[in-house]
């Protein structure tokens, strides 16, 4: 830390974990650096494409993809909506199940003893092995995709919540213990607030997993969605379509992340760090 920052550097440090950090009120300052960076990257990409360093049969030039967006946006929109629905539904289901499971495990020794290993193992199984089964049980279309997303997404939240629910300072627990608080009160008053930083870290991870797993699942068992579009367009070597679909997926991922970050700020003001993004 430079001596220039003087005391307010210390104050900033303090705010990071225990206090509200002053919000950066200039959205421009928030948006500008990444925007400039993206513009620079696209420029580089255009140059590399034009000079043939990036072959077009791998990654088309930016203008080809832009053209694809203009020409083909109804198709992209249709598939994007399908994927978004699946990813968001899976994200919600997976995370809610994870949180509920973590809570049950944290407060019931028997449940935890009996099922914790399986909760772990389920993540270690490659979901691809599941997909045909899911397609057969749930039929083709969105349900198996949502199931795959839920399974892929639950793990970070589950693990982080198991940890977060156990993370509260022992002193707090001793206090509640002497107050003879019920399990529910311990959860509500201490463990839940203490676990929020863990939960939000997990939600950010799973926001990214949600879309990739929706895409992979669509690749296997769907007839719509960006993953399907990726497969179809790769089967017919339509690279502009393929990359347009990828870009849409990436943007949607960022959108979901942004929602998580905003939620974090709203729900958890006392530890939220400004400008996570």
């Amino acid at each position, binding site marked *: *830390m430079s001596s220039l920052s003087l005391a307010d550097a210390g104050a900033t*440090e303090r705010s*990071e*974990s*225990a*206090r509200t950090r002053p919000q950066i009120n200039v959205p421009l300052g928030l948006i500008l*650096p*990444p925007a400039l*960076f*993206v513009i620079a990257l696209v420029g580089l990409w255009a140059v590399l494409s034009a000079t043939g360093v990036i*072959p077009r049969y791998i*990654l088309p030039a930016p203008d080809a993809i832009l053209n694809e967006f203009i020409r083909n946006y109804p198709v992209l929109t249709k598939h994007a909506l399908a994927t978004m629905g699946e990813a968001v539904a899976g994200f919600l289901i997976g995370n809610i199940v994870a949180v509920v499971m*973590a809570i049950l495990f944290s407060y019931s020794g*028997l449940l*935890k*003893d*009996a*099922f*914790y*290993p399986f909760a*772990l*193992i389920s993540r270690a*199984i*490659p*979901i*691809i*092995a599941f997909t045909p*089964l899911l397609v057969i049980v749930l039929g083709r279309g969105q349900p198996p995709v949502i199931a795959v997303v839920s399974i892929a997404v639950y793990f*970070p939240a589950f*693990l*982080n919540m198991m*940890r977060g*629910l*156990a993370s509260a300072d*022992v002193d707090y*627990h001793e206090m*509640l*213990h002497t107050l*003879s608080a*019920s399990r529910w009160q*311990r959860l509500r008053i201490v463990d839940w607030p203490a676990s929020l*930083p*863990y939960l*939000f*870290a997990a939600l950010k*991870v799973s926001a*990214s997993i949600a879309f*990739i797993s929706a895409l*992979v699942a669509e690749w296997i068992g769907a007839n719509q969605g960006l993953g399907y579009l*990726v497969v179809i367009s*790769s089967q017919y070597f339509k690279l502009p379509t393929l*990359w347009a679909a990828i870009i849409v*997926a*990436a*943007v949607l*991922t*960022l959108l979901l*992340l942004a929602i998580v970050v905003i939620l974090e700020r709203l729900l958890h003001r006392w530890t939220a760090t400004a*400008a996570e*993004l």
Partner: protein
Amino acid sequence: MALQTEAIAKSGSLSWPGLGPTARALSSRPRAVLAPLAVLIIVLALWQGLAASGAISPLILPSPTAIAGAFAIDGGNLFYHAAYTTMEALSGFVLGNLLGLALAVAFLYSDLSRRTVYPLAMAAQAVPIVAIAPALILWFGNGMAPKVFVTVFLVFFPMLVNALRGLRSADAEVMELLYTLSASPRQELVMVRLPASVPFLFNALKISACACFVAAIVAEWIAADRGLGHLIVLYGSQYRMPQVWAAVLIGTVVSMAVYGLVVLAEARLAPWLTRQRPISD
């Protein structure tokens, strides 16, 4: 009832020591071993019954005994491919986590890098591997490299997010102490931020202990001539389901073993995390 006298790991994950010292767990807390064992036996029995009843096609779900049979027929081959995948997965695990941690540290000290690179790292997570596989093969050839790349790619992000959060979780008072001691940023990192982030770091390691195998297998699934992913595709295309499930099972067991190692490492490296709570009911 008040506190139990033997230290009970505070963190939930600690008290189930993975595939580690089962014997010790059995002697100190038999339920932690017997209960899952009971669940396992019930599940296997139902599964066997279901498969035997013919309700589920053997081209979809083989019986547990058939899977066990696959090991007998094809064990050597399975283990050869599993070793290959393990090498890819572990390389990706190590490199990906180091990358994630390094990025988190960079983001911590450079706001600009965080604001520019973080969204892109996030967006990159949404790029389906199918789509970039041809590019990977083109650039990295067709050996382990592209698989390790995919694994790194999928592993670094959980570490990045958790590490970033963990590095910021240091207690304000402790940060103040280091500040008044005029610690350098590096000292602050090594002495406070990293230790404070240990619970988060281990969670990321646990997430990726499983994810690295899934990632390596998916990468092999696309184009590989070796590894469990290759076996799953090849055997799958021939409907040799017991072998497919055996390959899946090996992958699962090996990644659980890695998970168990992470758990053991955590208990070793972070003993202060085990301060015990009073047991209220």
